[in-house]
């Protein structure tokens, strides 16, 4: 234990001292998440995190079973027993909202994962190849881009008595991957001709390695943003479908709550029935959008610096709203 012989820089940990270059590897992992390290993304992630916790621990949080009927308390306003009141069947709205989070998040994320997977596959391939392969993948993307999502889902869902969640997520993914694929294709095309990709090729790297190791890390921000975008679209799609009654009531989510509220004349008097679910949809949508704004700022530093400039000017007490630069008027002689 002779501390005097140890190099001063690596102070306490012997494991670190034997491998001085190890600690510097930490930023390598941190860099992948750098896009989330700003106020907007963090706020969005925090809200999203709350919803995830609610979804995971729904049985612990919800005071009642969401479908448990209490016929002594029908259409009652918020009270100590029922924090958000009850439905026309005496079901606890708060419990329904809590359990409904599950359906929304599961379908949203499932659709996001499937859509992102397809988008990366098609987009990167279309961007890396050139010629007819790229053109036909691009044409395919365009076709899916113009397929109207909701009518397609209504048709597919109507074929089933009780469409499973995975099917709903799958159809939402099919209508949602094309936009991400387009953006990824464009970005991959620009990456393909960068010198570092050419250098890797000239070094004799295999195709899959060039794509997976050299190119994909440079696409993470776009992939993440495309993922978040699809989740947002899927959440809105799911709740819309549930609200218009395409998805049966056995699948409990915020949209179903709105569906029952609307069916039983809750608007506008029984506000406790529909406001919480509506707020949750808005809140989740906002959280996801905030995450995406944060990624946008990371990808496009011009947005970031504009925000910083605005903050700096506000600190100095200057207004940013005036779009016109003020010019001090001199003796009045126009040039």
């Amino acid at each position: 234990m002779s501390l005097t012989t140890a190099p001063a820089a690596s102070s306490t940990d012997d494991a670190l001292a034997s491998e001085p270059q190890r600690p510097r590897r930490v930023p390598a992992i941190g860099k992948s998440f750098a896009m989330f390290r700003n106020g907007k993304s963090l706020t969005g992630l925090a809200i999203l995190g709350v919803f995830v916790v609610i979804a995971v621990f729904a049985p612990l949080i919800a005071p009642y079973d969401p479908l448990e009927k209490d016929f002594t308390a029908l259409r009652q306003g918020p009270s100590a027993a029922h924090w958000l009141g009850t439905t026309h069947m005496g079901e606890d709205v708060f419990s329904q909202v809590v359990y409904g989070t599950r359906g929304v998040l599961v379908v949203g994320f499932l659709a996001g994962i499937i859509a992102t997977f397809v988008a990366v596959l098609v987009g990167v391939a279309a961007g890396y190849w050139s010629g007819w392969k790229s053109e036909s993948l691009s044409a395919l993307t365009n076709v899916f881009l113009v397929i109207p999502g909701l009518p397609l889902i209504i048709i597919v869902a109507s074929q089933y008595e009780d469409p499973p969640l995975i099917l709903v997520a799958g159809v939402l993914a099919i209508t949602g991957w094309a936009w991400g694929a387009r953006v990824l294709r464009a970005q991959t095309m620009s990456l393909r001709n960068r010198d570092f990709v050419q250098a890797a090729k000239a070094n004799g790297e295999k195709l899959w390695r060039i794509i997976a190791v050299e190119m994909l890390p440079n696409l993470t921000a776009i992939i993440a943003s495309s993922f978040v975008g699809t989740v947002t679209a899927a959440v809105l799609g799911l709740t819309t479908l549930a609200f218009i009654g395409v998805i049966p009531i056995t699948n409990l989510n915020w949209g179903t709550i709105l569906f029952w509220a609307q069916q039983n004349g809750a608007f506008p008097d029984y506000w406790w029935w529909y406001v919480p679910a509506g707020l949750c949809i808005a809140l989740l949508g906002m959280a996801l959008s905030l995450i995406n704004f944060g990624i946008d700022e990371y990808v496009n530093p011009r947005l970031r610096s504009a925000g910083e400039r605005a903050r700096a000017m506000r600190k100095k007490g200057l207004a940013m709203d005036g779009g016109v630069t003020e010019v001090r008027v001199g003796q009045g002689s126009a040039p």
Partner: protein
Amino acid sequence: MTTLEFTNVSKRYKVRGAGDMLALDDVSFTLTSGQTIALVGQSGSGKSTIAKILTQLERASSGEVLLDGEPIPHRGPGLRRYRQRVRMVFQDPFASLNPYHTIRHHLERPLRLDKVVPKDQVEDEVRALLERVRLDPDATIDRRPHELSGGQRQRVAIARALASRPELLIADEPVSMLDVSIRLGVLNLLADLQRESDLGVLYITHDLATARHFSDEIMVLHHGVVVERGAADSVILDPQHEYTRALRDASPDPDKHFAAGAASTARS
């Protein structure tokens, strides 16, 4: 002794709506280890096309590239073997290094790909490479390209090219993107490395002055045609082709002073 023969190579690009564009027209030269040839020409003269054909990023439309008398295989282990022996340093060190990866990754990959050293010696070899290009291994190995200066990056790019222990090196305008103040340092480094390992270097540039400083032989390329070639000094001092003369006169000559009037106009 390695010999790379570039014989009667032509390269045609298809341009949409405009027919063919002849980028290289019947170009031939021979590069042997220990020798430096400078390939001089303006932008669009076909310099980079030669580099791309030599690295097999593009294929020649006609003609042959022979390494030690044998044509380059188009795929498979033969092509990899060729690429291990003939390496390239890219022009722009800001673009040729992957912004996402550390310097360690950039130097490890060729070592692992070509199995230059056993796996447990890769780390030592990376450090040795960094020292060869006069970079401090401890200060650079875990950095990313954006944390280094342009000159440091180009040194890393040179180290990457040397990692597979090539016999021939293609340097595509290796200093044109660097500050004038550090160009000489990088060029001298290349010259030292060449002497140390008896490399054959094809130095592609648009700058006649560095071409003369650095190479034994100069080839002047104009619109895809070699218009003049010869020993470096004779090409510069006694150019035969008018394009070479124009190129030489286009670069400022430190011995010639501007007339007072001309200087003031130039500064304004």
